[in-house]
């Protein structure tokens, strides 16, 4: 019969080239970025460079100099991998070394939509690594049950934006189980809920959220956000080994963008320590996850332009959090800025600022400044105006010093 399927290619040639300004592709992001690309004349925005940032370990030597790594790992080999591969390797290590470990979630069997579970099903079988039906409340409840009977499930939520159907399970069950069980000691420690979070340039309302603060409000859960491949591997393995349930938020823009040398062997990193990434004497900048790169770029410019010295701290564990490291730093610098993507209102910055105010008030030279998302959502066309960028952090440093 006459009806033939339409071929794709001939139509492609009919599309005329787009107008000039849309052609600029963001340096670090090979994907579509035109909603939030910085203009060509920008000096601050668009200067995050994952190939040169000092946040990532570009050589084996710097990677292994990390004093938090165990001795045997520090003398072992490293491999340059990106963040999704680091997550994959952590799960692979856990599956290999602990038969209680399970990995499941929506679409994870073929490798997951972000490729974090690649080859795990093939190598460990469908009993331990499997697809779940499309129900977050179902799969998280299932994970809680499995953990409560001695397994160590790693459950994936496809996007942090889709964790809410499981909210009841996480808040009323997961977090409270140990407390309500008392002497029976029934709890769901060993459960890790992994989820990609944060903006990527074109995620709009439902592929951009950072819901960490919805979980930090609730005691009983541990909330962790890694900044890099080394951190992702070590913190994820620590979370799997931890006897408290953990919410592990993976900044999804870093899955591919952040690449560094990562020890090949298994290791854990502390779940109760913030990390000072760069020391400084005039301002403390506290952040976690993707905005750390924004902060680093802003600090570089600010130190050069303004002649100041800025300390940068990665919270790493958002709750419970390392209050001491932050307070000690602010007691030294007298100025603090907290930076995060999620909205400022009742955010992590509010908690950190209040803690600083209570614990270091007499040392403060200026009010604690929050640089965070505004009280709105991440509208597709407006992301660059809503999420903290290098210019906003730079401006905050400048203002806090001039205060």
């Amino acid at each position: 019969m006459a009806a033939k399927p339409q071929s794709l290619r001939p139509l492609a040639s009919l599309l005329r080239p787009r107008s000039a300004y849309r052609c600029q592709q963001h340096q670090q992001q090979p994907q579509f970025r035109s909603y939030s690309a910085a203009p060509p004349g920008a000096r601050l925005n668009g200067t995050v460079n994952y190939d040169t940032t000092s946040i990532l370990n570009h050589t084996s030597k710097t990677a292994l100099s990390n004093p938090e790594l165990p001795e045997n790992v520090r003398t072992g080999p490293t491999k340059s991998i990106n963040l999704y591969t680091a997550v994959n390797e952590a799960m692979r290590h856990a599956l290999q070394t602990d038969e209680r470990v399970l990995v499941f979630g929506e679409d994870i069997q073929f490798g997951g939509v972000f490729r974090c579970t690649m080859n795990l099903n093939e190598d460990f079988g469908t009993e331990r690594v499997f697809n779940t039906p499309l129900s977050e409340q179902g799969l998280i409840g299932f994970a809680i049950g499995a953990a409560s009977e001695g397994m160590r499930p790693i459950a994936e939520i496809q996007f942090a934006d889709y964790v809410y159907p499981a909210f009841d399970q996480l808040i009323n069950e997961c977090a409270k189980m140990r407390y309500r069980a008392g002497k029976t000691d029934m709890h769901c420690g060993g459960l890790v809920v992994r989820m990609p979070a944060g903006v990527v340039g074109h995620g709009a309302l439902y592929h951009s959220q950072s819901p960490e603060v919805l979980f930090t409000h609730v005691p009983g859960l541990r909330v962790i956000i890694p900044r890099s491949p080394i951190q992702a591997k070590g913190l994820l393995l620590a979370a799997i080994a931890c006897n408290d349930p953990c919410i592990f938020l993976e900044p999804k823009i870093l899955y591919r963008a952040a690449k560094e040398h990562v020890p090949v062997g298994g290791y854990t990193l502390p779940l109760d320590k913030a990390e000072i990434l760069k020391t400084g004497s005039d301002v403390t900048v506290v952040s976690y996850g993707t905005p750390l790169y924004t902060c680093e770029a802003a600090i570089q410019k600010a130190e050069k332009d303004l002649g100041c010295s800025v300390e940068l701290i990665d919270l790493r564990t958002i709750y419970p959090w390392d209050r001491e490291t932050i307070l000690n730093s602010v007691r030294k610098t007298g100025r603090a800025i907290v930076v995060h993507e999620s909205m400022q209102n009742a955010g992590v910055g509010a908690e950190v600022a209040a803690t600083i105010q209570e614990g270091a008030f007499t040392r403060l030279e200026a009010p604690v400044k929050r640089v965070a998302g505004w009280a709105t959502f991440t509208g597709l066309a407006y992301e660059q105006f809503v999420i903290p960028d290098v210019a906003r952090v730079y401006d905050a440093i400048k203002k806090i010093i001039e205060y």
Partner: protein
Amino acid sequence: MSLRHGIRRIPVGRALQASTYTQPSITPSIPRSWQRWSSAAVSPASERILFPGALNSKLTNDLEFTSPSTAEAIPTFRVMDQDGVVINNERGVGTTDEEAVTLYTQMVLLSIMDTIMFEAQRQGRLSFYMASAGEEAITIGASSALDIGDVVFCQYRETGVYLQRGFTLEQFMSQMFSNHKDVGHGRNMPVHYGSRELNIHTVSSTLATQIPHAAGAAYALKMQNAQRPDLPPRIACTFFGEGAASEGDFHGALNIAATRGSPVIFLCRNNGFAISTPTRDQYRGDGIASRGAGYGIETIRVDGNDIFAVRESIKEARKKTLEDGGKPILVEMMAYRVGHHSTSDDSFAYRQRVEVEDWKRRDNPLTRLRKWLEGRELWNEQKEGELRRKLRKDVLGAFAQAENEMKPALKYAFTDVWENVTEEQKSQVTELLGVLETYPEEYDIEHHEGGLDSLRELVKK
């Protein structure tokens, strides 16, 4: 909603008289004894027992579990076969020749727009797209069998519904390029359309959340129908995938719609996949249709490649939703997702290329209708060529126009969070303005309508 169909407001005084509105929901088929719990007692001679939770269950001494695997699969309704030949001429196709040609034109337009937008995304000209290949008859056919006043809730792969209801190419393109003409103010990802005039709620990426909305909206419509018997009655219809039907929201929606007698069509597009997840990992029952009985909902399974079957079943379903004072109907439309899940997906990572090719060859909703049209000498190769050339030109014209339009004003980043902009938001806008004014070279503002003035206006208000 639609002004065209009159605003059905309930006068405050009358709204309090609950009986006016609850009346239609009491279906005559429910025996009175259902309400009388005390009648659970049974006489020794009785064959049935009236437990409050199971009506009319027969007593038995056989220790037997019901087994879904022994039951025949629910049949699939079709009107014409793969070759476009009508199975039962007496029943007919329920469609005039002109209607059929128009429907075919719409399906071709949808498939041309899909092809162009998919390719455009590959070229980096928009961030995202989702095609309907293999499901054109479901969305266009179902939409053509609903009234324009009916309220529709979509998942995301229902571009055909918008098209058939009258969403224009300019509206599609404005949304996809998030330009200033987009009624969503450029806030949503491409294909998350919405239209007040067409009574379609705006798509949200979160799966299944719209299904209970449809149950509640239908209940509102039922009350308003009772209030204004002079206006044509309206119903609600919601579309969702077989994957989304695993969410709790699906189950909650069907159950509450059944208990409240909501006039709503739950339309499942079962295309065999939820991203990579095949139906065997999604459920173990007989598709989605088998769930209807569990909720006491009348259900039909339909061949989604047969646009006539789609139309006939939705026409009938619509009629049924308004019977007995209102009730939900479940329709499962069978299809195969021919394309990738979205532009972010490469489906050959989890399914064989030949599997897709086989499906395309075996059956296709466009080919089927075209064969029927050709059988009636309503269509031929020449008409096909002319149509495709014209539609391609239309789509590309709208594309070029929309791509070069201004972006929406920056104030829309902050409005509509609450009904009015708050004091906190104003202070944040002031802070943002300060940054934008201090570092003008850092931002791309000139492509947004009104530049910084739209933000200044927001702070002043």
